[in-house]
């Protein structure tokens, strides 16, 4: 009789613990964090790199760089892309080297010679040399 009660209590405790761990896993792990955990071996913390192009030098800094595959790299956390023309500050930036597109769906602030652009994300097509500032966007210029 006592054994049965103990078994029931233990089972209830076990079920509760399992449910709690599930809840913790669901709420604490964002998809990006899951990706970064899966690619621990290909990641770098406090990442900075300089890429020398034809006309300028690009400086990329990020909280964490994760190489997803041969063509895709994720810059997790605060990310900064800077050269002599502009500076883009955003979060969770994806670099697609195959399609030559760098993008983010997070709030983005871009500063260039003419002013500051705030947007809900960005997509930089390196081949076309076009930057799309997505969503509600505001471009405040330095013009007098």
């Amino acid at each position, binding site marked *: 009789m006592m054994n049965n009660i103990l078994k029931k209590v233990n089972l209830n405790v076990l079920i509760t613990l399992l449910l709690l761990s599930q809840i913790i896993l669901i709420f604490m792990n964002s998809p990006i964090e899951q990706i970064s955990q899966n690619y621990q071996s290909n990641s770098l913390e406090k990442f900075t790199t300089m890429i020398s192009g034809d006309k300028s030098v690009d400086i990329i800094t990020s909280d964490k760089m994760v190489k997803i595959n041969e063509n895709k790299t994720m810059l997790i956390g605060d990310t900064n892309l800077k050269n002599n023309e502009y500076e883009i500050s955003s979060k969770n930036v994806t670099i697609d080297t195959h399609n030559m597109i760098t993008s983010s769906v997070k709030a983005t602030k871009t500063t260039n*010679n003419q002013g500051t652009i705030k947007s809900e994300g960005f997509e930089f097509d390196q081949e*076309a*040399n076009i930057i799309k*500032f997505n969503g*509600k*966007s*505001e471009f*405040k*210029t*330095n013009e007098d």
Partner: protein
Amino acid sequence: MVRVNSKPMKIKFLFIFLIFFNYSLSFGESYIKASNGITWDKTNQTYSAEGSVEFKNNEIKAFANKILASYIFESEKEIFQNVELNEKVEIYYENEVFKSDTATYNKQNSLIILLGNVSIVSPDRYLSGDELIVDLEKNTRTLKTKGKDSLAEALIKDE
């Protein structure tokens, strides 16, 4: 010693504040706001904006569904040269409102050319036509309507 709370000092502070306030207003702010994003084409030196778009500079304030602004480089600074406005165009200049289907604003020449379903609204007049040329520098308005003579007016500003 002069007391900060004294009346003459308060007036001085107010005067200084007003000077700085007026100074900052005189520069104003220039911007493009868009609900559906802004695209920067670096090769063609343009910014295009879509959705509900608002453009403002020291001369005009404009609304449209699409805006294409081209710029030039002047002393290493990008300066807006030409602004093309499309669909539901509304341009505000002092106490006048110009409405049309499309418009082109040239900053260098202070010229606005409006085409299609054009109207001018101001406190004392309403005019409509097919084409309107607004010269902000010379302060003239030339309104053209198909099959009718052009209506030109020169506005005299109170100095």
